[in-house]
């Protein structure tokens, strides 16, 4: 029974891991594009007096992709900054319990973020909100963020289940 559950968890973890990996690749492309765009903008503006039209808008939106799409992978690698001082001094069992609570709170945060970001995206879509200079619709980026938050929730869920399993072991 336990073995079966672990095997299912392994499969689920692989799917979530692949998803976060895939999103991270998109983020990587976005950051490379961001650099290319800024370089072209500098050369265009300084040498030919022709900056990239709407460069500021596009760089900002690429920033959403570069950062938002990397959050899940960073969490999967436990790359977000944590204060590792107090918790290392408490017994393993209590630490597992505390970790499970902290993961659960993180999940709550990202569920709320997913839900409200979807709502925000819908509001922008229905109002036809666009970026300042180039008129790029904002809602696809907001929906993209909501999907990323959902992925972070899934990553936290896997990490939480692993800790809960350690508690029950």
């Amino acid at each position, binding site marked *: 029974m336990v073995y079966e559950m672990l095997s299912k968890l392994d499969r689920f973890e692989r799917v979530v891991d692949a998803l976060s990996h895939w999103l991270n690749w998109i983020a990587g492309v976005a*950051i490379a594009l961001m650099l290319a765009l800024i370089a072209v903008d500098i050369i265009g503006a300084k040498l030919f007096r022709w900056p990239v039209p709407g460069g500021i808008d596009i760089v900002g939106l690429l920033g*959403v992709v570069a950062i938002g799409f990397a959050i899940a*992978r960073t969490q999967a690698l436990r790359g977000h900054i944590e204060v590792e*001082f107090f918790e290392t001094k408490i017994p393993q069992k209590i630490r597992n319990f505390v970790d499970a609570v*902290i993961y659960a709170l993180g999940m709550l945060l990202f569920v709320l973020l997913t839900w409200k970001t979807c709502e925000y995206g819908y509001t922008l879509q229905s109002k036809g909100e666009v970026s300042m200079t180039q008129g790029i619709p904002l809602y696809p980026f907001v929906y993209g963020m909501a999907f990323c938050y959902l992925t972070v929730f899934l990553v936290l869920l896997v990490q939480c289940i692993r800790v809960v399993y350690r508690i029950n072991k």
Partner: protein
Amino acid sequence: MSPVVIGVIGVVVLILFFLLRMPVGFAMAFVGLLGFSYLVSPNAGLDILVRDMFYTFSSYSLSVIPMFVFMGCIASGAGMSKRLYDAGYLMLGRLRGGLAMATIAGCAGFAAICGSTNACAAAMGKVSLPEMKRYDYDDSLASGTVAAAGSLGILIPPSTIFLVYGIMTEQSIGKLFIAGVFPGLILAGLFVSAVVIVCARNPSLAPIGATASWKEKLDGVSGIGEMLVLFLLVITGLFLGWFSPTQAGGAGAAGALLIGLIRRQLTWGGFLTAVKDTLRITCMIMVIVAGATVFGHFMAVSKIPLILADWVSALPLPAMAVMAIIVFIYLVGGCFMDSLAMITLTIPIFYPAIVALGFDPIWFGVIIVLIVEMGVVTPPVGINVYVVKGIARDVPIATIFKGVLPFLIAELIMVGILMAFPKIATFLPSLTTY
């Protein structure tokens, strides 16, 4: 309950979450959401959470952070840290403690193209620690030098901490960067003095190295010429207003990429590693900035910063005494908390008080960075010490902390100098208009 009491409870809960190892950015966003929801309304809290996250990530002015991080990661992948160390080694290697001095010079040079303490310590540690081991340097001196000198990464521009401080306090990034130049160079000088004193007291810690010919020395220095050009392009461009901060970061990253390609030292694999490292570092910084923005909104409605500013400015103490107390709080906090967490937590609270006391915000930014530098090498949460430990796995952590001690004294002296002579930090920014 009054908003102030709710604000104080929020700060306490936030510190508790930090101590229980909740990621710093998540904790700030979560507590900010709870506090704002309680003081205004749950709907307003959720709205502010979603908008703060989206607008932080899509902010053009904040895209300066990924660009400067990218610049440092590409520079590291293109072997620039090694060339800087080699140049320092050829110039200083024949002196007692010369390799440690070369490490400090290399870190100061690499700090001019990289804005992070741990990236600087990691890049230079990989190059210098094996060399110091080969020349029989004492483990404590070698590892302590790398950990401490790596902290120059955030004082000599570009600097991620200056970026975050500048964005949070709406100060000019260009002025902050330029303000770090003199203190950074003086601190590097103090670090070298610390090595000289330590080696004079116990010569067995650092044997004398080989002498290099003048031709070798010139060859070594010519290998770092393009990095000097890159630094000057970025900082001068920012200083003279040719570039916006984001453009300066982009120019630096593109320049580092170009140098790596021309020298054929940046491979495709190296570039991909630089991209991955940039994403990870940027993401962890930006999530904290977004969380701090939510938390900052909560602090604003709690009115704590305003009340604290009024209270501090009415204290019957000289302004410098109040500043000394604030510095002490940062010093103690820096021992237990990550530097970025410490800054994003405290700036919304202390900054209005600093302004009310009449201190120059640029000077205060430099003081903050100096104290953060101490925080990255002090036990128990000295991140640079753990970075060095990751490279020199056979060296016990206590040995590294012991090796850091002389450099900590140098940093304390630097804080004292800067408090006594603020002009060291404010002179260059006073010449700029941007």
